[in-house]
């Protein structure tokens, strides 16, 4: 542990300040073609006609690809985890979000590629678009996804659910019910390096793929699945990412570039414009979270009912995983013995949403912490004292029944209070994360305690 607290040089610091760091766009391969994509101008539409022949005939164009060129077009980002596939790499007979790729062109330069895209003949039949996740279950809302309004594959349920304790009893025993609705909105990651891929066909039949991905082996698996190739024919080069923040987890540019490179038999580069980044790159999801807490007048939280709607955008991608993480964190850093949580992954005509800095958890932390302040206000209790009292302690169990071995809520809240000069009574200042006893072990928290000492884990299962 000698490195902790020591000033260590960044291993890539000198390369960054001298301009020697090579990002994907800085790699030069002779004969590289430029890529441009035809993207949907509509939020929701049927494609009634698609003809690329004029684009193909344009001098300087080396390849045009549509869904017909993709060996395995519909592949799910989390198929390996048992989450079924719903999203085509290139749109087939419909588009579900503005910016969805339909076809792509590789040409000698950027201008020729852009001109070729404008020569692709396409006709649409616009359909009503759907954006308000609160109306997903309304019978008159537009049906936009083959699976219905929400992702239906959480085991036998159409939502992620958590049940623990006796929620009805908690609400009967409560002195007060505190309710709140929290709605954080979408955020574009906006890395300064736009999405970029460079794919080079090698003489031995393999592809070398220079990628800005945050997830090399994951992207490799996705490209291999679409191409129906074994992994050993793909060489991925990456690890130098010009900012990602979760936005470069989705495999966005590699596969289409690979198809173009194979068809053109030439190296192909695809660098998105800033406009494309904002239009078609995935964002953090908008969320709608409703909480109702059963509380006592002296500041104990007996139970929590929570319903979450997560805006997945047009396809599932990672959303079921994000909502599962969200579900595990729905009591925050506090111990609530009786919970009833339902989390829905709702489909809309937004661009598909994805991970961003604490996938699924930042939203629920915002809701939980804001709700803690609201409870304190309703009860007329100090908000830090409310937190310290209900804070996770050794032996407490989380909503998904993990017994906590070394939770840090108490020392963190005390340190924060100390730093800002926040005065607390002595009995709070002296609190620790030790196992509950005495005044900190009221009857409603006895049964949830797991394990007989800090070394056990999983005793609450």
């Amino acid at each position: 542990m000698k490195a902790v607290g020591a000033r260590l040089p960044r291993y890539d610091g000198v390369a960054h300040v001298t301009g020697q760091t090579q990002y994907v766009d800085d790699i030069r391969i002779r004969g590289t073609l430029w890529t441009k994509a035809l993207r949907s101008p509509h939020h929701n539409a049927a494609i009634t006609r698609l003809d690329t022949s004029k684009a193909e005939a344009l001098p300087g164009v080396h390849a045009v690809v549509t869904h017909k060129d993709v060996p395995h077009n519909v592949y799910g980002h989390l198929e390996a985890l048992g989450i079924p596939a719903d999203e085509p790499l290139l749109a087939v007979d419909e588009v579900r979000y503005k910016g969805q790729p339909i076809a792509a062109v590789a040409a000698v330069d950027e201008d020729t590629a852009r001109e070729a895209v404008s020569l692709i003949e396409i006709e649409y039949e616009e359909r009503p678009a759907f954006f308000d996740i609160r109306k997903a279950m309304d019978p008159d809302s537009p049906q936009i996804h083959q699976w219905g309004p929400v992702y239906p594959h959480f085991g036998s349920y159409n939502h992620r659910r958590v049940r623990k304790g006796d929620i009805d009893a908690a609400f009967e025993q409560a002195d007060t019910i505190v309710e709140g609705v929290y709605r954080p909105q979408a955020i574009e990651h906006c890395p300064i390096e736009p999405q970029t891929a460079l794919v080079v066909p090698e003489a031995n039949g393999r592809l070398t793929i220079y990628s800005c991905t945050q997830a090399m082996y994951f992207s490799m698996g996705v490209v291999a699945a679409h191409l129906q190739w074994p992994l050993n024919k793909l060489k991925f080069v990456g690890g130098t990412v010009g900012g990602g923040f979760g936005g470069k987890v989705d495999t966005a540019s590699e596969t289409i570039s690979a198809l173009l490179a194979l068809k053109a038999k030439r190296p192909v580069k695809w660098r998105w414009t800033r406009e494309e980044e904002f239009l078609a790159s995935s964002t953090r999801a908008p969320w709608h979270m409703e909480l109702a807490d059963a509380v006592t007048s002296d500041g104990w939280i007996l139970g929590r009912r929570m319903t979450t709607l997560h805006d997945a955008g047009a396809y599932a991608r990672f959303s079921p995983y994000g909502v599962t993480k969200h579900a595990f964190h729905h009591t925050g850093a506090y111990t609530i013995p009786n919970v009833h949580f339902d989390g829905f992954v709702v489909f809309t005509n937004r661009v598909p949403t994805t991970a961003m800095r604490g996938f699924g958890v930042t939203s629920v932390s915002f809701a939980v912490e804001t709700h803690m302040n609201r409870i304190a206000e309703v009860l007329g209790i100090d908000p830090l004292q409310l937190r310290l009292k209900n804070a996770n302690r050794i032996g407490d169990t989380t909503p998904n029944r993990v017994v906590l071995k070394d939770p840090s809520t108490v020392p963190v809240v005390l340190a924060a209070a100390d730093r800002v000069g926040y005065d607390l009574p002595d009995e709070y200042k002296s609190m620790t994360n030790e196992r509950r006893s005495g005044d900190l072990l009221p009857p409603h928290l006895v049964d949830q305690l797991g394990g007989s000492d800090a070394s056990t884990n999983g005793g609450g299962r």
Partner: protein
Amino acid sequence: MRLTVNGEPRDLHSPPLTSLLTALREELEITSPKAGCHQGGCGACTVLVDGEARRSCLLPLAAVDGAAITTLEGLGTSDNLSSVQAAFDEHYAAQCGFCTSGFIMAATALIDRTPKASREDILTALSGHVCRCTGYIKIVSAVEAAAKGDVHPERVEPSFEPEEAEVLIPGSPA
């Protein structure tokens, strides 16, 4: 068109309306100026044109004919960093590094022009530059240190000896 790029005279054959950024990157293969937005919004393409910090993505080649261009490659080398480069490294002012070239060029132009630049001067000079990783504080600290001459170009060496890993099977790699 003829430019002096990092001290060397260079003839360019790109069309006159090609952006300076594209000409530098694609014709001369000088890749430190980055194409972050191609619309003057992020500052990642900043280079010095006759000593002044300019957005190379917005400058047509025809507008800079005859000018002296300096990019990050024209400042210090890895074993002889300029004071701004050294300060960026010392203060951890680069994270992913993609915006770094633009920030260093803008800071270099500022300090060349205003050697005792104040914090206010620095904030103004860097205001058009976007960083999405470090959050600016370390960047501003680095430029302040460079402006004060409080820079230690010798690399910060690790202040610990790595522990020997325990060898569980004698003769095996640790």
